[in-house]
């Protein structure tokens, strides 16, 4: 029996606070029982010799260990300074009120726990419980920043603050996908996802600590080079040329991706990862938009061809910089609106969060591509033959599109029209489960983090997908429609990790690919199960 961990135990002196033991994870159904004893690949001692890895045998950030006692103390002081800034309007006007409300009103009723897929699937490891990290932050705040806190801590919950506490808290803030399912079920309205988001901000904005994939190779590269993929403007255009050729091969007519068209109605913003990993998605958008006769353009300006905004997950300042770049490009192109492609976090970032950042002529209207696509289908301008999509299809709801924006039905109305064997997952819509790759997890792959994602945070989604197709024959190809790049990447990794193409004939893709697949007049099918696309 494992020791029962309390929030104060985070400062405990131990090589590993909460390792995941074989057999502890929630069991998978057949034919995946052989994964039930799996745990993340053990970290090699020489690889973690100089970094903090004492939380759960998994590493997401890789924080260097302080070299001396003085350095440790300086880092603790820096942490407290950042924590104080989270509660100042000059530094944190963006989230001050929501954070204060969530910090002050939790009744610790544990209703949120059952809503959290990471906690449930981990076999209920205490440290992944939604309120564990919130309670740690709450106790530190009350004890070290409130007047008389050190005296009242015995009543309100004690905790020791040392470098171990801080390093573990930093890692722990990257064991939550910020799906905010916990916030939906909280009877009071407390948001543990938000508290996690604020912890990440504190580390990044005050201490310069964040996973390399979302900071160095993420927002910094985005702002300097033009894309988090490292793709320059010239490379983006080359990529699009290749996509045009491929699409011509498939559709039989010339597809033209327009660049930098001033005065176009729509600036289409794709996640640049689509161009590299799923070029068919970018091509499918071009086909549909061109066939529907829309006036649209893409931008070849740095950052203008990459809709992502990783700042959403960890840093308000980086978030603001990227959002301003996107809006400024749209403003200078004089488009009527920005349409955001199949990228969930880009939806929320630019449409919802940036809404209270962009003022004046930077406030260019923004719309979800799912809405634009539905209006095309509804208009009757294009003819679809649903028989071409005669295979089982289920829909994954990206949290940022559905729970964070309330865009629930447009994608379903499209699927009902073009996919006769569409079925829902349980639960779905605003009650969906995260793919497990939310808040940056889809692109974080350092150390053994990919294992943790596949085994823990994505496990619930994998079970949901299997459940949606449980009445289908094993050898029937099945399509998981995931209209979000990060979700798609996560589901791709899941299928690969669990060998699910072989065992269950699971395939995945976006929504617009299904539309093109059903479109009248295509020379070949866009969706060809089991065939490697030409770009791989």
């Amino acid at each position, binding site marked *: 029996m494992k020791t029962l961990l309390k929030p104060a135990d985070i400062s405990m002196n131990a090589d590993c606070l909460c390792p995941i033991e074989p057999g502890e994870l929630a069991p998978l159904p057949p034919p995946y029982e052989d994964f039930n004893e799996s745990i993340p690949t053990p970290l090699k001692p020489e690889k973690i010799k100089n970094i903090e890895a004492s939380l759960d045998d998994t590493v997401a950030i890789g924080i260097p260990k302080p070299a001396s006692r003085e350095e440790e103390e300086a880092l603790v002081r820096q942490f407290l300074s950042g924590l104080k*800034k989270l509660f100042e309007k000059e530094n944190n006007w963006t989230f001050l*009120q929501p954070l204060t409300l969530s910090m002050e009103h939790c009744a*610790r009723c544990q209703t949120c726990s059952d809503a959290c897929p990471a906690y449930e699937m981990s076999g209920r490891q205490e440290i992944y419980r939604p309120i564990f990290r919130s309670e740690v932050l709450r106790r530190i705040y009350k004890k070290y920043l409130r007047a008389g806190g050190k005296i009242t801590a015995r009543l309100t919950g004690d905790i020791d603050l040392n470098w171990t506490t801080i390093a573990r808290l930093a890692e722990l803030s990257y064991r939550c996908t910020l799906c905010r399912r916990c916030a939906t079920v909280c009877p009071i*309205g407390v*948001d543990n996802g938000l508290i996690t988001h604020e912890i990440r901000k504190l580390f990044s904005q005050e201490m310069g600590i964040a996973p390399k994939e979302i900071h160095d190779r993420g927002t910094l590269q985005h702002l300097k080079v033009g894309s988090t993929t490292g793709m320059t403007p010239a490379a983006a255009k080359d990529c699009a040329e290749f996509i045009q050729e491929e699409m011509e091969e498939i559709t039989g007519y010339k597809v033209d991706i327009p660049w930098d068209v001033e005065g176009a109605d729509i600036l289409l913003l794709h996640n640049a990862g689509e161009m590299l990993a799923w070029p068919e998605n970018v091509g499918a958008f071009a086909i549909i938009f061109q066939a529907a006769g829309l006036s649209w353009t893409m931008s070849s300006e740095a950052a203008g061809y990459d809709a992502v905004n990783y700042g959403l997950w960890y840093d308000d300042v980086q978030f603001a910089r990227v959002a301003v770049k996107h809006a400024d490009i749209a403003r200078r192109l004089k488009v009527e609106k920005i349409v955001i492609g199949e990228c969930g976090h880009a939806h929320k970032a630019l449409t919802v969060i940036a809404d*209270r950042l962009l003022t004046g002529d930077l406030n260019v209207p923004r719309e979800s591509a799912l809405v634009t696509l539905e209006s095309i289908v509804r208009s009757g301008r294009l003819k679809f033959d649903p028989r071409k999509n005669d295979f089982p299809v289920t829909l994954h709801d990206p949290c940022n599109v559905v*729970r964070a924006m309330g865009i629930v039905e447009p994608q379903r109305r499209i699927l009902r029209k073009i996919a006769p064997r569409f079925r829902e997952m349980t639960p779905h819509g605003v009650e969906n489960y995260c793919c497990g790759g939310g808040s940056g997890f889809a692109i974080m792959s350092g150390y053994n983090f990919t294992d943790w994602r596949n085994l823990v945070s994505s496990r619930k989604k994998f079970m949901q997908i299997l459940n949606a197709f449980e009445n289908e024959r094993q050898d029937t190809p099945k399509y998981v429609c995931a209209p979000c790049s990060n979700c798609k990447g996560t589901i791709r990794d899941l299928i690969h990790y669990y060998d699910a193409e072989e065992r269950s004939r699971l395939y995945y893709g976006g929504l617009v690919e299904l539309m093109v697949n059903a479109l009248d007049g295509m020379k070949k099918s866009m969706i060809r199960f089991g065939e490697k696309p030409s770009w791989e």
Partner: protein
Amino acid sequence: MIPVRFMGFYIFTYICVAVFLLAVVYRIYRQLRFPLHVRWEIYPVRHEKAARSAYGGSYMEETDWWKFPYETSSANELKYMAPEILLLRGLRKENKRLWLISFPFHLGLYLMLATVVLLLMDTALTLWAPSLSAEGGMLRIGLGGVTVACGWIGLVAGLAGSLGLLYRRLSDREFRLYATPADYFNIVLIMAFFLCAVLAAAFADPSFDAARAYLAGLLTAGTFAPGYEPGQSIPGAATILLASLLAAYIPLTHMSHMFMKYFLYHQVKWDDRPSSPGNAIETAVSKNLNYRPNWSAKHIGADGDKSWKEIASSTPKDTK
């Protein structure tokens, strides 16, 4: 006139009521003073119009949504909020086991509040409109009956609920791990109030006449006769002290969620108001962008002089 030796009770209650009012006003004032935050709504947003409110959709499901006026439905919101406040619908759906004890606990508190309001109404009528509340009259009998029903149901429910919550906190591992001494104190304090009130009502004041008299004394600064003399039963005196203390204490703790839930829902969870040129949101955002942060990480490039607007328009020079 109340004897001087009992005036301490009245003074204590006055102080507690004053603390209650100050704490509530401060908490609300503080919320109103916060700068406008970025949107962080979560769907379903219950004031959405038409069918969308049922499945959690938003106005952003419409093509060119910004071309239409922003409209909300108070009826949809009320349809959700009434059972949420009165029956704790969310908790019932998501955590039925806890609801079975939390609902009677909250019902007890609600009915105690209702009982105080009814007693105050009755007292006010007696004091200032005696012709409307003559002894034996319909109004008096009706009001008295409702007060007794409210009071007794509330006391029994509250006592059962608070005992249940205390037992759960002590016996359930996931509650115990997170419970602080303050949590136990809170629940014991509330339970003690219900227990004393049940004893006082059962053995000395089944119709709440003494409670009514005490409130009349409070309303008239002890000049109302026949005033209740708090010392005449120990449970009665304890009830007065504990009820007063609770009134002062609740708004100082996380239990203020009883009324702060309004802000958690309306100003965060359901705040989907879009910004548009020249509207109040845009004005507030423009003001926020003038704040001067001093975050220390080098990539931020903050020095306490540059505003958010300047920083957001810049490219980071440092990586860390």
